[in-house]
């Protein structure tokens, strides 16, 4: 049973896919529009979209004759929440280090 967040990080490990997500954060786009934004083939864009979709970071919908790609904010948020927790932990740790360094240097002087 793969951990869902694993797929998210693997999907985000690629700079082109991160750029595609940044573009989709500003609004929905078709694969064709995305391909026009990046210096890679339509086939390569399509592969990246498959990875993003499998990771749950985007969904694809069909409207009339066009297929739209849409970002899934909740899944993208899971990553930023992780970053926030990590930051908070280090803040507490480094406050404790501040106190410890003060104690150490007072003992020395």
């Amino acid at each position, binding site marked *: 049973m793969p951990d869902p967040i694993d797929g998210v990080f*693997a999907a985000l490990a690629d700079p082109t896919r991160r750029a595609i997500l940044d573009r989709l954060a500003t609004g929905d786009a078709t694969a064709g529009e995305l391909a026009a934004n990046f210096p890679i083939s339509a086939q390569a864009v399509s*592969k990246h979209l498959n990875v993003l979709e499998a990771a749950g970071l985007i969904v694809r919908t069909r409207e009339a004759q066009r297929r739209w790609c849409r970002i899934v904010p909740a899944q993208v948020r899971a990553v930023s929440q992780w970053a926030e927790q*990590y930051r908070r932990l280090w803040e507490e740790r480094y406050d404790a280090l501040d106190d410890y360094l003060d104690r150490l240097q007072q003992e020395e002087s």
Partner: protein
Amino acid sequence: MTLNVQTLSDTTLVMSRTFNAPRELVFACHTQPEHLRHWWGRGNPLDVEMDFRVGGKWRFVEHADGTEHAFRGEYRAIDAPRGFTCTFEYEPMAGHILTEQYVFTEEDGRTTVTTTSTFASKEDLDGMVGSGMEVGAEQSYAALDDYLAKL
């Protein structure tokens, strides 16, 4: 003093923090068990096992509110007292391995610690970044299948 945080990408964080202490001492606080024990647990009791050399492993167990939180990793590069690089893993989330690079710079007797943390999935660690690799391997195996069928 405040902790500055920048997100370089969705998988990389850069944090920096300045301490009122010389570099040698701040470096020692990050790399010697008798010092680490006093602060890394954020005031909670901490068990420290570490072998501070390249390829050496470390494991810290923080005892907080009756539960144990275990972290572990391996030292990848050491350039004392300028910095070091290690991997970082929270044991309940095994497999989610971070690479942390610590850089220590001193100015006017104060030391700034800059940490670059990169989250790498298992695929990344194996150099399997992105989707192309798996597809490539699949194609190679398909070609091998065809070839074997002809023999």
